[in-house]
């Protein structure tokens, strides 16, 4: 369980987070949603101790962030930030290998090698294992970074917009893998997602943030509703059902009042060859 109590955060004179109290349950796939600038990354970075805690208290499985050595925390949680560009010229397998470093600290054993292989396999990186990071595509590099986080093998996985750069198939595969990690091996995942339907389809628990506050949280069913989402994003949203889960429709042509346009302009029609 991650327990966040009374956490506020300022950057300069701007208040970014306001007195947040939040408990993230173990063994669940948790989606963190909200508009740009809501404070999702800031909160995740505080939990991941990438940002010094200014006020309040955060515990990860009983470990107080402020009092636990960083190397111990690396065995409890793995993290992938929103905009980490890795400039090092490493091979894919070498990068993923560093995910095991918290465990072996320089002397990899058989278990470490197996974990690296499994992570490479899981992200379809086996054919790219000897390629340099600066010689693969953005999405492939993103997958390599994710594989490193997976290889770390921690109970908690904190991911900030992991679907960035991923195509439809790899996005789906990633969500399925995260769900599998949660349901199959009882681990816990917190992930920021912008496409709410990924939350709708896969998340067990959804936390919605806006303006530095948590505005709603609970099971996907309870949070992903028309009133909550419309208010959260200040845009009209329609929620249908599909496969017994919410399906959020928001790409339609609506006017300001939320009534659909009678007909899309010609330019918006696809040309079919």
């Amino acid at each position, binding site marked *: 369980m991650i327990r966040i109590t009374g956490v506020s955060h300022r950057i300069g004179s701007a208040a970014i987070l306001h007195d947040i109290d939040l408990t993230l349950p173990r063994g669940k796939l948790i989606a963190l949603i909200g508009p740009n600038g809501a404070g999702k990354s800031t909160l995740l970075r505080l939990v991941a101790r990438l940002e010094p805690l200014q006020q309040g208290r955060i515990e990860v499985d009983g470990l107080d962030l402020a009092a636990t050595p960083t190397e111990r925390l690396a065995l409890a949680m793995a993290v992938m930030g929103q905009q980490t560009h890795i400039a*090092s010229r490493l091979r894919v397998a070498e990068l993923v290998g560093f995910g095991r470093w918290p465990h072996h600290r320089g002397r990899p054993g058989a278990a470490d090698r197996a974990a690296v292989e499994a992570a490479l396999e899981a992200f379809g990186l086996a054919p790219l294992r000897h390629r340099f990071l600066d010689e693969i595509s953005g999405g492939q590099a993103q997958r390599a970074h994710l594989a490193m986080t997976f290889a770390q093998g921690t109970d908690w996985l904190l991911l900030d917009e992991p679907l960035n750069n991923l195509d439809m198939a790899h996005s789906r595969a990633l969500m399925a893998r995260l769900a599998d990690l949660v349901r199959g091996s009882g681990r816990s995942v917190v992930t920021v997602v912008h496409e709410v339907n990924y939350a709708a389809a896969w998340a067990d628990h959804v936390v919605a943030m806006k303006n530095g506050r948590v505005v709603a949280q609970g099971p996907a069913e309870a949070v992903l509703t028309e009133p909550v989402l419309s208010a959260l994003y200040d845009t009209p949203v329609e929620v249908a059902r599909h496969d017994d889960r919410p399906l959020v429709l928001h790409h339609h042509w609506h006017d300001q009042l939320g009534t659909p346009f009678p007909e899309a302009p010609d330019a918006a029609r696809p040309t079919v060859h």
Partner: protein
Amino acid sequence: MTARPLVAGLVLALLVLASLGLGAARIGPDAAAGEGWTALVLMESRLPRTLAVLLTGAALAVAGVVIQSLVRNRFVGPDTAGTGESAALGLLAVTLLAPGAPIWVKMVVASLSAMAGTALFLQIVRRLPVREVMLVPIAGLVLSGIIGAVVTWVAWQADLLQFVGTWLMSGEFSGVIAGRYELLWVAGAAAGLAWFAADRFAILSLGDEVATGLGLSTRGVMRLGMVVVSVVSAMVVTTVGMIPFVGLVVPNIVARIMGDNLRASIPVVAAGGAGLLLACDLLGRIVRHPYEIPVGTILGVVGSGIFLWLLYRPPAHG
């Protein structure tokens, strides 16, 4: 692929043999080993000189890898971070204030002073906008220039200009004899320490966030890196003077070929630095034989040539 290390090792061995054989006094395979004069030249001059060049080249190249991973910029070297000039400043200070201090005190002061200079450089780099990669080397050059000017000014005031000249001028190995180069072993040991901590430096180059996520104490690694770079610079500058470009170009070439997995690449970097410096030293001894051109001058030409080539032939994705 597999033949490469073999070829490289062979080239290095040939360079060593040439260095042992070449000099004003002729010694060669025909001069029977153990003959008094030959053995004397070999043990007192040629061997120390060759060892000094190898140690210096290896240590500087490894220090280059370390400073590049500390600032995450490939365009800096231990000679463009103000480190050598800071070492000279420390040595000058101790010479003025405590002329009778034993040599080890002087070296400790020089190293500490080099560390302060490196720390200053890192502080400046932290404040630069991340995207402006070229500001980092420029900042280093400006800092080196300022500290170098301070050293020159103080030395001039104290009438010690000739004395500091040997540190700030282009380095050379012609004065190296047994008993006058042994401090370079300390530089070699510092480079060895860097290899010991290679994974940490490699993880540090992944960025502060990734490093923290992997449980690395970034401050500790930064400090260790500063110690390595400063000790290497201090020992080299005070023993043989400024040696440019080795710490800049060798890590770049090796990274292009084998990447940044430092555990594997640091030994190659060390061998490359040793080989490059030895080749340049030999060149300096041959070109105007029996006179010598300082290796620092040779490197100024060769090194800048290699560097320009590196700049204009960027790797596939820069």
